[in-house]
């Protein structure tokens, strides 16, 4: 007990909440530097500004959530920007045309395929349940026939419904179903190539990024770099819902973002799927040998990423009243930056949606503060780069390390705090136990600098053998 006990408690607390400290510091900086309006209101803190930030970060946030899942498995998805742009182009064209276009040509078959696949999968799952309950198995031909039939029916129904929608131009519900389905299909394709083709995610999604950008441009047409959407004149009025402010404070895109955050955090924390994601990122071979269907989980993760990217595409169209093939340029890098600022390890296995949420907010507030202070946009980029580096450095180092606390109190070498603080994979805990440190030191480029190495007790490496 005594001062050392409190020091440990304090340090544990700081380690666990480290993620939020950078956000709080940034907010403090924002409040202090913010200009004040003529009525004496701090503009940074005004509800208008805060709700604007939420609106601005929504797109990047939704994409970053998908990216978090991918990165947690140890992969990367570079194609999200292009898929988002394709989503915005499809969305704009479906909204504004009442005849068959290149957009329907791409979207309908893909939609039909996705519906067929999902229905077939669901049917097969239900049949499995039924078999289990009845205690006997349907023959494999019967089963294939039944699932195939269900899929075919679903595909035809989806096509017919979508085609019926075209007559009256697509409404908001229509695009919210069709466009994400297309993104899902592209993401699924990413995952399929990565797992079955045994290729690096980096290169597969890079190729997809280039290819889908091309598809987006082809769909948009040579002469039409931008497809404007004017609700009320060339598109249905109700599409405006996606850019409105609820109760004059809450932006609808922000709601989408928050919903995606909550759903995916739930998915990661309490479901088997979430566990598998962490297990694959932590040790893919161990997961595979434990009977985890690694390939399926990975495919699902890329599909979700594609789905969310194209959902962001719909919101982009609503926000900027246009669909354009170049909308997503650089998007993937923003998303990766937010994920990494949120403390998710690029090696996989460690991180959280909460971290990404904070990372996205840090990113958003940063731009907001720079804009409020009228900093020229090129200088903004330079500052952003520096601040991303600083933020990541804070996330990767333990706080004690940064503040030199470790030298003030001689810590027990068995890492008891670190081990406790480590259990739920929250990203802010970098006081890693022996072997984790060891792995990080060798694996993580940021750790090659070595400033963390001297903190390791000399027997750390031996302990873990």
């Amino acid at each position, binding site marked *: 007990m005594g001062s050392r006990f409190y020091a440990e408690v304090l340090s544990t607390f700081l380690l666990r909440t480290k993620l939020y400290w950078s956000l709080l510091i940034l907010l403090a900086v924002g409040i202090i530097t913010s200009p004040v309006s003529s009525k004496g209101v701090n503009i940074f803190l005004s509800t208008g500004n805060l709700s604007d930030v939420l609106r601005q970060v929504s797109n990047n946030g939704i994409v970053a959530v998908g990216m978090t899942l991918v990165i947690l498995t140890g992969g990367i998805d570079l194609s999200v920007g292009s898929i988002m742009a394709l989503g915005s182009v499809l969305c704009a064209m479906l909204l504004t045309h009442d005849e068959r276009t290149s957009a329907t040509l791409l979207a309908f078959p893909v939609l039909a395929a996705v519906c067929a696949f999902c229905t077939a999968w669901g049917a097969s799952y239900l049949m499995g349940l039924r078999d289990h309950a009845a205690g006997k198995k349907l023959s494999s031909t019967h089963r294939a026939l039944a699932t195939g039939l269900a899929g075919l029916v679903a595909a035809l129904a989806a096509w017919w419904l979508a085609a019926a929608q075209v007559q009256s131009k697509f409404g908001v519900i229509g695009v919210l179903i069709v466009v994400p389905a297309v993104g899902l299909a592209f993401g699924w394709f990413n995952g399929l190539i990565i797992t079955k083709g*045994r290729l*690096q995610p980096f290169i597969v999604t890079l190729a997809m990024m280039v290819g889908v950008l091309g598809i987006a441009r082809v769909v948009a047409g040579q002469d039409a770099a931008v497809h404007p959407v004017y609700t009320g004149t060339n598109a249905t009025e109700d599409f405006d819902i996606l850019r409105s402010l609820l109760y004059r404070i809450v932006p609808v895109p922000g709601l989408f973002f928050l919903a995606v955050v909550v759903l995916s955090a739930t998915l990661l924390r*309490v*479901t*088997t*799927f*979430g*566990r*598998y994601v*962490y*297990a694959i990122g*932590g*040790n*893919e*071979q*161990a*997961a*595979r*040998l*434990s*009977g*985890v*269907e690694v390939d399926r989980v990975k495919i699902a993760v890329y599909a979700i990423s594609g789905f969310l990217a194209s959902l962001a595409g719909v919101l982009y169209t609503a926000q900027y009243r246009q669909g354009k093939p170049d909308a997503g340029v650089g998007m993937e890098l923003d998303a990766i930056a937010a994920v990494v600022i949120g403390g998710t390890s690029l090696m996989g*296995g*460690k991180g959280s949606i909460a971290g990404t949420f904070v990372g996205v907010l840090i990113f958003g507030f940063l731009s907001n503060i720079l804009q409020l202070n009228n900093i020229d946009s090129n200088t903004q980029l330079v500052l952003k780069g520096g601040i991303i580096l600083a933020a990541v450095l804070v996330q990767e180092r333990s706080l004690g390390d940064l503040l030199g606390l470790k030298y003030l109190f001689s810590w027990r070498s068995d*890492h*008891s705090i670190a*081990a*406790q603080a*480590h*259990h*739920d*994979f929250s990203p802010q805990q970098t006081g*890693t*136990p*022996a*072997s*984790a440190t060891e*792995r990080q030191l060798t694996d993580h480029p940021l750790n090659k600098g070595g400033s963390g190495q001297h903190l390791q007790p000399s027997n750390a490496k*031996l*302990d*873990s*053998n």
Partner: protein
Amino acid sequence: MQGVSKTFGKIDVLRNVDFDLRAGEIHALMGENGAGKSTLMKIAGGIYHDYRGEMAVFGEPVRFASPRDASRVGIAVIHQELNLVPAMTVAENIFLGYEKVRGIPFLVDRNAQARAAARILDTLNFQASPHAPVSNLRIGEQQLVEVAKALAQNARILVMDEPTSALSVAEAERLHAIIRRLSSEGASIVYISHRMEEVFNLAQTITVLRDGAVAGSLPAAGVSRRDLIRLMVGRDVQEFLSLRSKEVAREPDLDLKPPVLSVRNLWLTHPKPTVSRPRLVDGVSFDVADGEVLGLAGLMGAGRSEVLETIFGAQTMASGGHIRINGQLVTIGSPTEAKQAGLALVTEDRKRDGLVLDAGVDFNLALPVLKQLSAAMFVSRKAENDLAARQIRSLGIRVRSPRQAAGTLSGGNQQKVVLAKWLETSPRILLLDEPTRGIDVGAKAEIYRLIQDLKDRGLAVVLASSELPELMALSDRILVLREGQPTALLKKIEFSPDLIMDYASPGGAVQMVFQGVAGSAPEAESADRITAGRRAGG
């Protein structure tokens, strides 16, 4: 080398080893797997530097900080796994790290290198173009490139770690001729090998290591094969003898019991097939019954792990054979299917294949049974905590908290976590691959007790181990493998280290008549399964 000791963690790998190598001598270093041969030579080669003891080269005391230091005084080590860059040419590999430069530094003089390489290759009677990429060469030729590399650095002491393990007889002969010539020209050679004939043919002196200590160092002339085997394995057998004799007394008649797991003609493709060894595992057949432990014995590279992995569907290369569980023919294409069939595999390398090291013990324990712990995808935290508490108690896993990261546990406790997570799947057949590798004596004893327990509870166990005493104490029968093929199936009363070593070593005795390529019977061929290349981990 005088009084050299080395520890990995709490495990003594080398204890006070004295090793003298005379000029121009071929000195064989022998011992079981894990006896410390490679470790000793890695110290000599400057790879490990945190050892105790003295080393002197040509009378000069030395202490190397890096392999470069070692090569500077003329020591070259050729490791079992060759250290060549496949995409680079022969000449580039020979001079890797010691490039000939001309004028400006960094400007490699390719022509000079090629000429020098050709000259060295010539002295080895090795007709290969210095410009050929190493990946085009066969293993035996690559070995010669390694020798050439050592010569290029003017090595006077050459350490070769099992150089012939991947070579055909002709290639090995050629290498031996070169070794003899080098030795006659004054070079000293340390030759590590399991193959007795080679050692008798080549070496003037033989040193045997056992459990990290010198078991004996004697002139090769006048030593018998039997003596050598005794030196290599004649240790702590008595430690387990009491346990064993009890077992022998109540040995059940296993032949009467129906097998739970029955494997016929199991084979697995070799990634780099050679004429002498076209398959990694070939024609392996065995039965295991409830409450039986079948041991798999064999030297390093005999294919023990591969047998277990192939059965478990964890191997990525094409494989085949008949696997019956309770008499039912099954196809196991993936670990998931193996798990469903009631199999569990505790892998050799728990860190690489067994545990998510950064995740908690509870996370690791729940991983294989997550589906059973959850309702409609949602994991029950309570069920998970109960499971963790139960397994930690029943196996005596020492943790501060169930959430402690698995990577922070000691080796023995990590191994218990891996065992526990598989026991939770209620397997009928347990495949254990080196379950006590790298863990301390206390934990070993606990694992032994656990295996006995599981056996008494009626599990069928297949145990692969390189430690003969362990294998003999725990197994009811032992299948001996040599280069992927079974050579003997021994009953408990027949167990003896000498006999097992004899069946395991190349050129030794053969009890079984090997049937040739799998599926010589037509009906066997039809049911062969091929698992398409599902590679694990990038």
